[in-house]
């Protein structure tokens, strides 16, 4: 279960990444953040951002036109 959920459904680039970065900034090390997005661009943006920032993408699933990501803050 994620510590924080970021609902970015309906938002377009670059807002899912902005919201995710803000949530991670506030989270504690080790926390997991769940991001839900409907922007298909998130499928490439979120893994890229997470890897570049040194965090861990633990899960990435597509379900009913929604993209769910589970990210752990390092």
């Amino acid at each position, binding site marked *: 279960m994620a510590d924080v*959920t970021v609902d970015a459904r309906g938002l377009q680039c670059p807002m899912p990444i902005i919201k995710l970065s803000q949530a991670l900034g506030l989270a504690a090390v080790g926390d997991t953040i769940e991001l839900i997005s409907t922007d298909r661009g998130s499928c490439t943006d979120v893994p890229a951002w997470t890897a570049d920032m040194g965090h861990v993408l633990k899960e990435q699933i597509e379900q009913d036109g929604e993209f769910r990501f589970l990210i752990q803050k390092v």
Partner: protein
Amino acid sequence: MTVPSLSTVPKQEPAAETQTEREKMVIIAASGDLDKAWPVLILATTGAAYGMEVTVFFTFWGLGILKKPDAGVTGDDWRQKLLSIFNRGTTEHLNLSKLNFAGMGPRMMKDLADKHKVASVQELLTLAQEMGVKMWPCQMTMTLMGMEREDLIDGLDVPAGAGAAISLMKQSTINLFI
């Protein structure tokens, strides 16, 4: 949503920032077109989300983006006044570089952006400022177009020139001219 554990002090800085000095990103915003101002601010906010120290240098028509809505006619010279009338600037009056159709194009584009929840140029500008993106108005453009600091929005950095821009770009990882 549950509240993050309070046993650890929340770390504000992204993980990558702790090891080294923050990477820099510089964007030269030279265009006052809506379709250029938009990517400038999308990339600036995303750069900030990457924990980068982002600076946008607004020059020539790009400076218009930073105009205050009530700036009105600026300058002393009749040519400057004429420029300020035909180049109203502000995030509200930016034209499209093509298919402008006397303002109908931008209006349609903004309606579409609204419909698809694409953040507006004004929203992104405010967000960029909140995220600590530095905004440098070009001093030479201000002089050329007869704009004073009070004709521009609040929260900007000190007006600067090409020297300061190049100095920063020499240390910067990403440099863009849009």
